[in-house]
């Protein structure tokens, strides 16, 4: 359920940050997106419980709707990637791969548009983890970390990762990009804002990285990083409790 809760908060935050538009169309779009966010949260909850079929069915409906309006939006990409994650659970690997490829392709072509990008990358990493491809999942999580870096530091967007796209054809090209991203991740971690876990997507990225470390056998590294993650979560919990008391 961790993913479920974190998604819920994360996606709601994204929709809130959008400036309220005056015209009818954008209001309509906003309503559409907030409904989509709720639906994605529900689908994630179903997926967590193991109801993969229901989850993928829910996403299928939204993909159908969105393809009529904006077939190349980040929302569409996120839906496709989420669907691929649920299809992995169902064991429909070919369909999952197709959806994943489509989703990532759209995400790649909208590289400058930050909306839902972090969430989509987190979902993509989870999809690869579900398939057992931890190496690719690691790359995707590092891309997510880079996305966080761009948000918390203005200098990050000018960093030299032009080709920060996801290509899984060759492991060779992969490795050199991965190294660049790893170095960036170290720099990003130094910025305190990057571990602000009241933003659930930030937590999710770090949690994914931890799970990937565990999956790839980096147990010592995992143990070294988990305590700081736990401390951040505990302090966020205390803040949340205090807020509740004040209210």
């Amino acid at each position: 359920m961790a993913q479920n809760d974190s998604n819920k908060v994360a996606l709601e935050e994204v929709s809130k940050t959008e400036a309220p538009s005056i015209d009818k169309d954008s209001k309509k779009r906003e309503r559409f997106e907030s409904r989509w966010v709720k639906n994605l949260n529900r689908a994630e909850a179903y997926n967590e419980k193991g109801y993969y079929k229901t989850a993928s069915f829910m996403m299928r409906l939204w993909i159908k709707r969105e393809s009529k309006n904006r077939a190349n939006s980040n929302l569409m990409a996120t839906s496709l990637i989420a669907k691929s994650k649920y299809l992995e659970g169902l064991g429909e690997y070919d369909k999952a791969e197709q959806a994943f490829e489509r989703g990532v392709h759209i995400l790649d072509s909208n590289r400058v548009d930050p909306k839902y990008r972090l969430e989509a990358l987190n979902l993509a990493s989870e999809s690869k983890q579900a398939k057992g491809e931890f190496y690719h999942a690691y790359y995707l999580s590092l891309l997510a970390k880079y996305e966080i870096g761009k948000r918390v530091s203005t200098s990050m967007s000018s960093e030299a990762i032009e080709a920060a796209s996801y290509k899984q054809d060759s492991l060779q090209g992969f490795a050199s990009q991965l190294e660049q991203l790893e170095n960036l991740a170290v720099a990003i971690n130094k910025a305190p804002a990057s571990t602000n876990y009241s933003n659930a997507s930030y937590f999710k990225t770090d949690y994914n990285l931890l799970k990937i470390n565990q999956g790839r056998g980096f147990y010592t590294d995992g143990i070294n990083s988990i305590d700081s993650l736990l401390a951040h979560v505990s302090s966020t919990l205390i803040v949340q409790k205090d807020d509740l008391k004040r209210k």
Partner: protein
Amino acid sequence: MIQQKADLLVTKAELYSNKGDYRTAHELFSKNSKNLKSLVSKKSKSTIRNNLGYALSIRSDERSKDASRYMKYAYNRARRSNDISKTSRLFYTVFEEQMDLFEEQRKKKKYKKTANKYRRTILLKYRRKSPFYWRYRLFENELLIYFDLKFRKAEKRAYKIAEKLNEYFPEKHINNKILNDQLYSIYIRQNRYDEAEKLLLENNQLTLWNYGQTSPIYHMSKLDEAMFQVTFGSDFGRAEAIYDTSFSLIVRPQLNDNHEKMLPFLNKKGALYEKTDRFQDAIAVYSEAKKIALDRFGESSLKYGTAIERLAGAYISAGRYKDAERLLEQAVEVVRKALGKRSIEYVTSLRSLGELYSINGKYSEARKVIEQSYKLSKKVSDQAVEVPEINSIEEMADLYITTGNYDGAEEILQESIKSRTRKFGDNTYQLITPYQLLGKVFLLKGAYIEAEQNVQKASDIALKTLSDTSSKYIDALALLSEVQSEMGRFKDAKVNLNKTLKGNEKIYGK
């Protein structure tokens, strides 16, 4: 955030368990079972994960009875939970881990019962055409391998399952590794080492794709290949290269000394050093393994018994017979108490003791012990998958030669060469000693041509599989020159004797 905290607490305990620090893992899991109550419900996913993780860490710590109890506990919670459905991966994992445990405990009935439950659960939601059903069939097939020992039938079934799985799983999917592992255990039991080796290489590629080149999981897979070379193959150079990089630089820093795989890794490393004549290095590695076994399992445990038996073997090779005898007598006693006489470990420790008695000139004791180990080895040879040279033929033949029973020695050596050629092929490390001993027998009988042929074969194989500085090669050359001088071919004998001298200089210095 509460859920996240619960997940992190369980993950932390899991990480310690994966690392092999079982004591800390147990502490964390038991702490979690109290702390999680205030965070999440009793039947939540985190609680079930915590129960399962606890059971697995207990199992890795060699307490399989307790593990079975906790595993059942996890299963019951998962079954009644509203937090995970019957189609959830976690639920299937609980089944598979239970089956693994029963396989280890050799409990066929329980294995079968769990397999049936697993099948029913899958068929509730998925049809027979789903990949999960065929994954289940793969687990079910293990019944034929590990309990019924029907390898041919298991192989046929595995091929059928593979055909189906290929329809569902992509080529590089990590699930293909389970199939490869199963086929590997079938091939090994059928002595089809070439095919088994191919599967290991395939597994390496799979893990490389899925986990990446720097990942310890990939390097553990490579270590499997190194261990294969040490046990069944003869490419010791490759094995050593893997040990030097994968084990020392990548895997070891990630694992605790108590990790369940650490002892097998160290034992094979020691065997590698022993086979390549570096007895002092072998002694150092075996001593380390002995210390780990003692700290973890205690003085009366089987693991400790086998550890000191291995160390004693290295002492014998290094010529430290007194130390070896003391350890071996202790090892035989510990193993007999822990496992009884019908065990591979007991047979191997008796064999080493016999070898030692023979070296020390105690021929009657040696004969008694070696004959006993020879008889017992026939009874346990089915289980001796990891010890392909379990029978004590070499020691027996050596003893026969020393006591003058040349015909007896010739007979068993011919038999041994035949069976080893069938098993490993005709250019393998395992044939060096039998050919050499056979050459010695013919030399003593005066059949010089046969003697020369056999010793020549031994030296050729030693040169090919080891190196020109290996003791096996040099011993074979020395024997060859002895045969040639008996034949009156002093020139050839001189050439070989010079080579022997140079080889010895290379090893021991001038």
